């Protein structure tokens, strides 16, 4: 056994002994009553709120990346011949335009598929008889900001007067705004849950201090330090918070799994893009640890603050 092992071994032994001795000063496991259950609920809700926030962020990022450089050109003209002509003219103009990475006319089959849910394709329907605009899908090398869209509009205006040029992101703007609001809501919920956890731990600590005031006074009179007494409460709170944290994590993970299955059943590409990755799960697993640290810190500070009132 080398010197380091001897040193760490004796240190461990001393810490174990000190913890054991201090643990005997107050009755353990009876400090906080329903605290593990309360913390389990708090952690469970935080896990669900965090997972929702992370999934929404991923969804928004994926959608944003998809449409960031996307521009749609619609040729709105009732005459199919004129519509096709202007589409070809616009295509030719766009192919040579600066900043355009790719450009293509959306084939009729794809257009039919797009309108199928609204207009139907049953026998006798004549989809082609409806004045559906010709669509040109343009991918820019950069973002489709207002200036880039205006430049494109100007380039094709003379050759395709019936063209309407729109950034794809502008159509999804309300969706992004809704996702942003939901993310804020998730963040707010997490903050509120953290605040509620702190408040609960504060109440539990004060209650425990009140219940054990006589014992604490005796320990004080015998030379016990504030730090010694605070450690006893911290340890009790850590045990309660750890038990609650594990329970809450399990509760949250089960809930996320059930919600995930429900959303996956929708078959939407946007929902699939929001599925959680390894990093997200790692962050979620850190929530109970953060909960324990928060509870222990709150207990320590509240106990030390209360002890200041004693001589």
């Amino acid at each position, binding site marked *: 056994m080398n010197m380091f092992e001897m040193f760490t071994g004796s240190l461990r032994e*001393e810490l174990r*002994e*000190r913890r*054991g*001795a*201090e643990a*005997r*000063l*107050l*009755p353990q496991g009876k400090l906080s009553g329903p605290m593990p259950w309360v913390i389990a609920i708090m952690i469970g809700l935080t896990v669900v709120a965090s997972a929702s926030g992370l999934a929404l962020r991923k969804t928004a990022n994926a959608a944003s990346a998809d449409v960031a450089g996307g521009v749609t050109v619609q040729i709105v003209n009732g005459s199919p011949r004129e519509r096709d002509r202007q589409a070809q003219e616009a295509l030719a103009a766009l192919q040579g335009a600066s900043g355009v990475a790719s450009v293509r006319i959306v084939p009729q089959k794809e257009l039919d598929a797009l309108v199928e849910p609204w207009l139907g394709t049953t026998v006798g329907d004549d989809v082609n008889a409806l004045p559906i605009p010709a669509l040109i899908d343009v991918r820019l090398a950069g973002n489709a900001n207002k200036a880039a869209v205006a430049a494109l509009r100007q380039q094709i205006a003379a050759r395709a007067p019936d063209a309407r040029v729109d950034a794809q992101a502008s159509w999804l703007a309300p969706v992004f705004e809704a996702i942003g609001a939901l993310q804020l809501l998730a963040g707010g919920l997490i903050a509120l849950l953290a605040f509620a956890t702190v408040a609960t731990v504060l109440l539990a600590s004060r209650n425990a201090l009140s219940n054990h005031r*006589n*014992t604490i*006074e*005796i*320990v*004080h*009179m*015998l*030379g*016990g*330090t*504030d730090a*010694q007494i605070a450690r006893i409460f911290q340890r009790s709170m850590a045990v309660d918070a750890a038990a609650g944290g594990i329970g809450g994590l399990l509760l949250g993970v089960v809930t996320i799994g059930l919600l995930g299955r429900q959303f996956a059943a929708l078959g939407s590409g946007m929902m699939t893009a929001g599925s959680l990755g390894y990093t997200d799960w790692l962050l979620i697993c850190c929530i109970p640890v953060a909960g324990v640290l928060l509870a222990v810190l709150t207990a320590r500070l509240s106990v030390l603050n209360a002890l*200041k009132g004693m*001589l």
Partner: protein
Amino acid sequence: MSQHEDAEIVHFDNVGLRYGTEKEVLTDISFTLYSGRFYFLTGASGAGKTSMLKLLYLAQRPSRGLIRMFGTDAITLPRDRLPGFRRRLGVVFQDFRLVPHLSAFDNVALPLRVAGVPESDIIKPVTDMLEWVELGDRSHARPASLSGGEQQRVAIARAVIGRPDMLVADEPTGNVDPDMAEKLLRLFEALNRLGTTVVVATHDVHLIRKVPESLIMRLDKGRLSDPTGALRYPPRRQTSTLRPERAGA
């Protein structure tokens, strides 16, 4: 007698104590206690004995005056230094103040555990001490299952287990039979011979007479009765003429 004999251990100068806005329960208290001496604090019920002891074991700050303990101003002592001072004191409370959920053994071991004494060094002295106060077979009993006298003996064992520099006891023999009272007094004397300053509050004259070398502080309605000033300015070497309140006189 200890080699530290005659070293000043406690000094009160013009100390007054009042609770809230009530009139003073202690007024103009001035005295000096020396290391290795045995003091009795006596007086009628309500004279202020317990309040004075509270000042001695640092459970209370005075309303006015100066208190010096172990050579340090105890009034302005920072809060974080109080535990170190309290570990040098042994206290027997009038109401015992045992920890209800701890066994007799754990109550006696409490000062040692608080001071961080290793568990292996706790078992034997605590067991011996419990044997000495004739509670060896009750070491696992909780305070609620002990009689008043047994609780008092546990409280005394807890106060002396750490070999304090000063022992402060409030009516320590009030609940024990005369034989046990005598035995506990012998324990205090033994500690005193080892250098511990002992301050015992009692109104039991018989108890006082059993320690003829002791000095007596008499409290009367919150004032220290000290006609000759022997306690205020005690000489280095005591002589009978300067000990007018010697026990048994």
